[in-house]
């Protein structure tokens, strides 16, 4: 399964880089859905090989919650002309964001080999760390709340990939609880994001308070 882990890991990294250069929100959500399905398939195969029922349940939960429900919910929260919804201006220019994304892959590799490699000994262990960095960067480099939420979920996806592979015996109640929390976060965020779009304020004075 080591090769499969590395392959799925690289696929995840590629998909996040794809998200990084996308401006259309629907495509970003679809890409996130695809990346979740990839993790779900990996967990399913791993669970089948190890004959581990927890992993099989986790795989099903990942597919249903992360692959289907959350992208479906986010798409519903888009405006009617959602296919047109795009982020016109991001904090970091697209080309630079891709370069930085690749840079974080290298940083993840260096950090992993400097700190955890001797303890864990997993050859592709730097992949989840790189994904964590990329998730954080996606949040920081975009203004759009939907993309920021997806950045957060990319971070969580990296954990599911890492935790599911290295610690298949991790109690299911914990991972189930994390998924339930995620559903809660997404639903509450959906409300807040919608309000945020509807209430966009041009009164600069209202933002002065947020400084300092």
């Amino acid at each position: 399964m080591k090769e499969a882990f590395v392959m799925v890991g690289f696929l995840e990294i590629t998909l996040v880089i794809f998200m990084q250069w996308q401006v259309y929100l629907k495509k970003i959500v679809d890409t996130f859905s695809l990346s979740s399905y990839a993790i779900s398939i990996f967990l399913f195969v791993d669970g089948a090989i190890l004959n581990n029922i927890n992993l099989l349940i986790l795989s099903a939960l990942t597919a249903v919650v992360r692959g289907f429900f959350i992208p479906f919910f986010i798409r519903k929260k888009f405006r009617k002309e959602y296919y047109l919804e795009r982020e016109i201006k991001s904090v970091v220019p697209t080309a630079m964001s891709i370069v930085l994304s690749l840079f974080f892959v290298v940083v993840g590799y260096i950090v992993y080999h400097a700190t955890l490699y001797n303890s864990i000994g997993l050859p592709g262990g730097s992949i989840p760390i790189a994904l964590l960095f990329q998730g954080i960067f996606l949040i920081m480099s975009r203004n759009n709340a939907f993309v920021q939420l997806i950045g957060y979920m990319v971070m969580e996806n990296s954990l599911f990939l890492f935790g599911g592979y290295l610690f298949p015996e991790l109690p299911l109640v914990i991972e189930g609880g994390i998924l339930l929390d995620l559903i809660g976060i997404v639903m509450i965020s959906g409300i807040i994001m919608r309000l945020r779009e509807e209430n966009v304020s041009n009164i600069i004075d209202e933002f002065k308070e947020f400084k300092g």
Partner: protein
Amino acid sequence: MFLYYLPLIVTVSAAVICFAANDKISKILTLISASVSIPVSLYIWVLNSVSTQFLYIDAISKIMLVTISIIYLTTSIFSSSYFKHIPKPLLKKNLYWAFLNLFVLSMFFSVMVNNLGLIWIGIEATTITSALLVAIDNNFPSIEASWRYIIIVSVGLVISLVGIIFIYDQTHTLNIANMLKNHASESRIILIGSAMAIVGFGTKAGIFPMHTWLPDVHGRSIAPVSAIFSSVLLPSALFGIIRISQIAPFEDIKQFMFILGILTIVFASIFMINQKYYKRMFAYSSMENMGMILIGISLGKAGLLGAMILLISHAFAKSSVFYLTGNILSAYKTRKIAHVYSLVKNMPYTAYGLILSSLAVTGAPPFAIFIGEFFIISAVYHIYGFAYVIIILLALLTAFLSINYKVAKMSFSERKSTQKTKDEWVSALIPLINLTLSFCVLFAIPAINNILKGITG
């Protein structure tokens, strides 16, 4: 055993019914639920510590339960009188009560469970249940603050989840009782895991450098929400750090916590100097107090005793401060310090309450915060020497002068105006009760010391 579950049962029942009930019934149910929680928590305080498959209630849990219960009741009473000041609330009143109950439920859950993973889930659940409470004012800044809160805190908590997985790798269990029984040996992976967990939980507790959500949320949410956030939500997140420090009691981890605590109080006090908004100023004061508590936790023994005294006393005093800022905001319609004046003349109870509460939260004697800080600073002197004591004292002095000078200015400065304001009795009384409780913590110090004996040695 049923008694231990009662705080959870009462709050979850109140929350569920509030979703279906009308405003009045929701309010009454919440008040009943909060009133029941206090005697139950006090009774749990005198009972033996308990460790079952699901529950782990030790001295720290008991302290947290009592503090949360009392703040739950005072916030519920204050909310019922404050709600009329919100012109177009985001939620219907019954939903406000429902989310308030769920929020308290998630804090009760976090401090009672016997599983590190479930503590994480509980603390993450506090974000879900409180995000809409932050945005209740229903204007763009409060919605923006709520969004920043969700995203920053959630990212921080993912970092702590990575840390918890690393800890699990070494301990092969997340059961707290088992982890405390079979101490994990010091290894690089458990050190990294513990540090990540501390940074993650520290994000929620307003610990530097992931504190940035805190002033936005405290500054923009309504007074009762700011009060409950500052007084019990931040300590509930610190509770996660306490558990980590018990599971991984290594010197490197203690030093890491100590440095984070020092950085937090130094940066918070610097931010307070030029602060133009009174709610944000008190938010930074909360950050400074959480930094001091973190230092106390890192030192253990007398430091931990000081941290617990500070935690309880700060909860009462800071909730009092935020209730009072709500009174000022509803009367003066501004958050700017420069635009608030003649408080003593216009709202005497609020003014004197604010002056005394500000003195309390900045560690003036004879309030218990002073005693808590004294214990912590003594422990710092014994372990790290005089240089760190000087840094801490300078930071505390800066915070003391910044806050009390600005509060005095708001209270005593005179200006010609047609401002017609007066105190409302519930809004003025509840903060004064909490202020009195903050002082009375002094008399509870022997009881706190006694209950902590098993932990502080």
